[in-house]
């Protein structure tokens, strides 16, 4: 028994050390959920963005930046899908580490930024131009701040769970999302559509996958000691 506890402790510290997951120490539990998000049908073609009105940004890109509202990868993978535990979770307090959002080359990096309610959010302007950062919150307060080149980062946070579209009115092609979640168990799919939720104690959970254009899907999952595989498939429309 003692040995087992030690193992959990080691596994836990490893997760923290390597920055896996949400940045918060996952509660004791060896279960995990992983899988892939894909699409069927024909997704819309992402369009190249014309940044010629902002030369300081345009010159940072050798190939045109594409829109990202339905970002896809090889083998029908769907990128920027937020997969998170929407019910059954026993999440602790928000992690002390801030979620970082960058405005670079007149793009939001990352396109979708997940964070926990109450977690510090820091927004940087790495460009040589002014941005106004305008998160269009509906549940949380809506604010809109100017951030000229060289300004210090904006330090803020959100108290209620919400998917908040973010835009810059000066550069209307800039679009991103804050995914404010009440759980610390979340994952945003990469180019290969894969996700992984770690550190889950055995039990029953509801997992939700959210895509900015296609909305949410949920699945009920029973997690045991090992990894539980689930997949999500979104029906893509060509417009």
């Amino acid at each position: 028994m003692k040995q087992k506890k030690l193992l959990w402790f080691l596994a836990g510290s490893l997760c923290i050390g390597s920055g896996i997951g949400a940045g918060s120490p996952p509660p004791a539990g060896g279960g995990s959920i992983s899988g892939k998000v894909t699409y069927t049908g024909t997704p819309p073609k992402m369009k190249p963005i014309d940044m010629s009105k902002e030369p300081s940004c345009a010159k940072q890109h050798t190939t045109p930046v594409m829109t990202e509202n339905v970002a896809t990868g090889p083998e029908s993978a769907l990128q920027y899908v937020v997969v998170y535990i929407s019910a059954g979770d026993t999440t602790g307090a928000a992690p002390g580490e801030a979620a970082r959002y960058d405005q670079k080359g007149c793009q939001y990096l990352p396109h979708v930024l997940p964070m926990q309610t109450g977690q510090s959010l820091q927004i940087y302007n790495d460009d040589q131009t002014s941005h106004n950062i305008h998160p269009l919150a509906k549940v949380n307060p809506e604010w809109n701040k100017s951030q000229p080149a060289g300004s210090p980062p904006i330090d803020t946070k959100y108290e209620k769970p919400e998917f908040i579209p973010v835009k810059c009115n000066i550069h209307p092609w800039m679009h991103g999302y804050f995914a404010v979640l009440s759980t610390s168990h979340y994952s945003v799919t990469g180019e290969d559509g894969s996700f992984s939720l770690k550190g889950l104690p055995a039990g029953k959970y509801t997992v939700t996958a959210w895509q900015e254009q296609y909305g949410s899907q949920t699945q009920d999952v029973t997690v045991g000691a090992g990894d539980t595989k689930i997949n999500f498939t979104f029906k893509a429309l060509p417009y």
Partner: protein
Amino acid sequence: MTLKKVLVTFALGLGFSLLIDLHPGFAQESHVGNLTGNAGSGKQLYRRYCIGCHGPQGDGNGENAPWIDPKPRDFTAATFKCRSTPTGTLPTDEDLDHAVQRGFVTTNMPSWNPLTPQQRADLVAYIKTFSPRWKTEKPGTPINIPPETPVTIESVLHGRELFQKMECWKCHGPAGHGDGPSAATLTDSKDNPIRPYNFSTGSRFKCGETNTDLYRIFMTGVDGTPMPSFADVIQPNDAWDLVHFLRTLQSLHTPEEGLWKKYAAEHPSSIKPIGPDAGGQ
């Protein structure tokens, strides 16, 4: 406990719950100066004067709304344009009262100055019943506005530099005509097209007409619109310089405009253009 006592307690309880039921805004008041606004009275006034545009639910979907641009305010979101408080925070009761009293130029919202101050305070109390935010949040702390600095040509010129540096021209245009490169793409938070302010159209702004109003507008931002808050990025003295420059963009004879015209006539070669050609970006 005797039967009588039980009955009295029951009757009292019933009375209280009825009182609350009949006055949904019972818990919500407004405080404007010495006046205390009552949401119950405000509701009667709202149904007479405001409902046509702002709608029975206060969501800005009244029966006149389809024909109105910009759209009537949606009180359920509790996002307000004219505030003395920082961006993202609730306005003070005075802010809302001023908005009702002043009206909004270049929109369909008239001045409600003919109402009595008590009636306006009642309306403010009622408007606050449409969003739950008023129950859980306090209004923001009004921003500090230091005394205005003297109007000098140095102040105007520095304000002009800030207009370039802060990229005000990207929306408001190099001459403040509301025709900057981003102007055509602007939408409000409900995706309705919206125009940046054209400084040459007059002396009144949506949120007032004095220099202090102008200062407050760009420092707190116009929430729900593309106009951001500059409170974190412009120092108070610089903000007054920007106010002085903005006055030169108006088609009025302001002291600032006089100073600027004189300077421009005497130093034609030292004036750099505003906009994308100004360089230094």
